[in-house]
């Protein structure tokens, strides 16, 4: 599903990734680990198509609409409510029954009661839950998750584990806590 060959990315003089080779098979669940600045976020952005490699080749066998991307930022609008944010994405992804789907996703992540509150008023953990709702809303074939447990409390962590265990999507997950997903992982990619 993802194949990288001699993948490199530079930002001016700064080398973010250099000569990376890896493959994620269909249905694989790969953890990406490494110290700060090792290029985990850059790798996910390359796989999402949000950035282009400086060198090497990267093949991602998933159309744009089939990718679920969770970034450091929520990719949401602070002035829209939780439900309006999901409704907007539901429209753009042309989801059937998007309102029902949005509502179900908010319920699953414990945000139903806050559905009419603006995302900008959410705590860090609530915003991360809403970002997870956005990521999973369209049942993506490929999950690109950057520190998915960031900001989540024990209940949120539990909910995310449950969500991931129910899904068979191919996944590339950047994390500083690989042990929490060790059982689910099929491989590890360690960036230096």
């Amino acid at each position: 599903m993802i194949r990288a060959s001699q993948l490199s990315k530079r930002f001016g003089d700064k080398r973010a990734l250099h000569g990376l080779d890896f493959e994620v098979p269909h249905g694989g669940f790969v953890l990406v680990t490494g110290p700060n600045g090792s290029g985990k976020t850059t790798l996910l952005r390359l796989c999402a198509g949000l950035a282009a490699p400086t060198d090497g080749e990267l093949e991602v066998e998933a159309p744009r609409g089939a990718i679920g991307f969770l970034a450091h930022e929520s990719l949401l609008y602070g002035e829209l409510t939780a439900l309006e944010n999901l409704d907007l994405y539901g429209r753009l992804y042309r989801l059937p029954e998007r309102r029902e789907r949005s509502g179900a996703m908010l319920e699953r992540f414990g945000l139903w009661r806050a559905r009419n509150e603006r995302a900008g008023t959410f705590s860090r953990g609530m915003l991360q839950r809403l970002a997870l709702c956005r990521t999973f809303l369209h049942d993506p074939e490929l999950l690109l998750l950057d520190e998915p447990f960031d900001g989540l409390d024990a209940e949120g962590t539990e909910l995310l584990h449950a969500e991931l265990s129910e899904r068979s999507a191919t996944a590339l997950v950047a994390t500083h806590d690989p042990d929490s997903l060790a059982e689910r992982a099929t491989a590890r990619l360690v960036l230096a």
Partner: protein
Amino acid sequence: MSAYAADVAALARKDVLLELRSRDTLPAMLLFVVSALTVFHFALPAGSSARAETGLLWIAIVFTALLGLTRAFAAEREHGALDGLVLAPCDRSAIWLGKTIGVTAFLVLAELVALPAFALFFHPISWELVAAVALADVGIAAIGTLLAAMAAASRARELLLPLMFLPLVIPVVIGGVGASVAANPGSFLGFLALYDAVFVILCWASFEYVVTE
């Protein structure tokens, strides 16, 4: 409604809703354009030519638009929402078109106040001036939105946007002033329409490359 039109409508509606809630762009544009016209009214000597007065109106319009454009992608920058839109399966030009419609709407609202204020301070407005302003709005919003998206990715966005935008709208000011005061405004209005057509097509076709690294 086609899927493309539905995407554009959803994105434009989102921008209007964001502005209705945050009220951080339109009030600033209104305050600026009225203040600028007031200052020009007292600064210009009595008996000044219609050409000079109209020129000042166009300067006020261009800088009011610039003020709005600096905030055009503020909501997208706040939580990285532009990446979310870029990842959606909709045509990326729909993002540009939706935003351009929003920018045009705010500019038109500012002009609904600016033109009567101009008539009050200087001289009555003609249909040629209104037509020129309407045509100019399309070109200003089209090129301005594309440049605002480019600038949004840069740290020096407040500096970059005027540097790129102002030289490109000089033809709009020339066409606008010409259409407002010339004996034969048709050729200037035609020039503005041509400017719109060229830049709408260019911006529509190139937006995809602007929002990906």
